[in-house]
């Protein structure tokens, strides 16, 4: 997976094996913490995978907002002279909390959990999960998919037909 940079002509590529490995790590975190929902996204706000109750939460929107949250706090950290970006953000609600963590600086782990679950426990298990994910991602840098099949002209033609259909239903 290419995880150095996303967007701006530098796509983030996620192999099937990597997707499976990340999903397994998230499942493990979900079962250990009893978190309601866990989301893994990239820092550009693209959702990657999720675990737990996902039907009530719009995962795409939550990922975009989580990325915006991190981008805003990164600027705040600069303003107060922090040399590195903040790694964790915690939002405390009456019934539900959100604990957001930066993974490798390029990804976000969002843990949504009941407020009766101790934050300390979430922090400990999340930290272990981040270590696992970072190890996985650092190995993945060497494992960028190298298939030779490209998005071609035919794809563009079909895409335009789908676009027409999308607005003419």
């Amino acid at each position: 997976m290419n995880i150095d940079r996303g967007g701006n002509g530098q796509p983030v590529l996620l192999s099937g094996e990597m997707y499976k490995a990340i999903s397994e790590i998230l499942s493990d975190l979900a079962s250990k913490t009893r978190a309601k929902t866990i989301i893994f996204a990239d820092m550009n706000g693209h959702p990657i995978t999720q675990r737990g109750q996902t039907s009530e939460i719009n995962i795409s929107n939550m990922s975009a907002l989580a990325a915006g949250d991190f981008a805003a706090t990164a600027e705040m950290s600069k303003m107060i002279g922090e040399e590195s970006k903040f790694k964790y953000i915690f939002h405390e609600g009456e019934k539900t909390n959100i604990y957001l963590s930066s993974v490798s600086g390029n990804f976000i782990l969002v843990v949504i959990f009941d407020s009766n679950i101790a934050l300390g426990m979430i922090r400990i298990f999340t930290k272990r999960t981040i270590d696992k994910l970072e190890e996985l991602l650092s190995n993945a840098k060497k494992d960028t998919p190298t298939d030779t099949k490209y998005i071609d002209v035919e794809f563009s033609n079909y895409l335009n037909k789908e676009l027409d259909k999308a607005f003419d239903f």
Partner: protein
Amino acid sequence: MFINYALNEIQFKIVYYGPGLSGKTTNLIYIHNNLDKKLKGDLIKIETKEERTLYFDFMQMELGSIKGKKPKFNLYTVPGQVSYSISRKLILNGADGIVFVADSQKERIDENLETLYDLELNLISIGETLQTFPWVLQYNKRDLPNCSNIEKLQKKLNFHRVPYFTSVASKGIGVVPTLKSIINQVISKLQVPVKN
């Protein structure tokens, strides 16, 4: 751009950029209201009490499966006011394409130019330029009586000769052609391997 081989998903980020009150959010609202509901998520607006964009608006648009791949487009707007320069830069990060929404009114020409320079500076900071990055121009508010003519706007703003569209976003005129154009530009630049 994010490619998930396991799900055959390709996600793109498209950002609507432009001066304050030029109609960026109006573009998104029209797209959201007129898109097949099976293909869209909610429209999120992070705005001030005065209903001006504070941080960004966001919606996701999906398309049906194309040659086994599912493209998804994440559409963002930036806040237009000068004071939100940092927010604009943050939202631009990771963008694959830009729609620059210009206000066609004569008295807004300088603000259009200033915002275009602001865009260029922000692109440079992420290693891109207006010359190389996929973007399109939309001359909005063509229904207002005090519009500059297109030739003049083209001369002032479209020095890179990118595709341009005239629009009245509040009535939906020109909105979808603009979106289609930027999506096509982004796709045509795409030269990345994609698994079957």
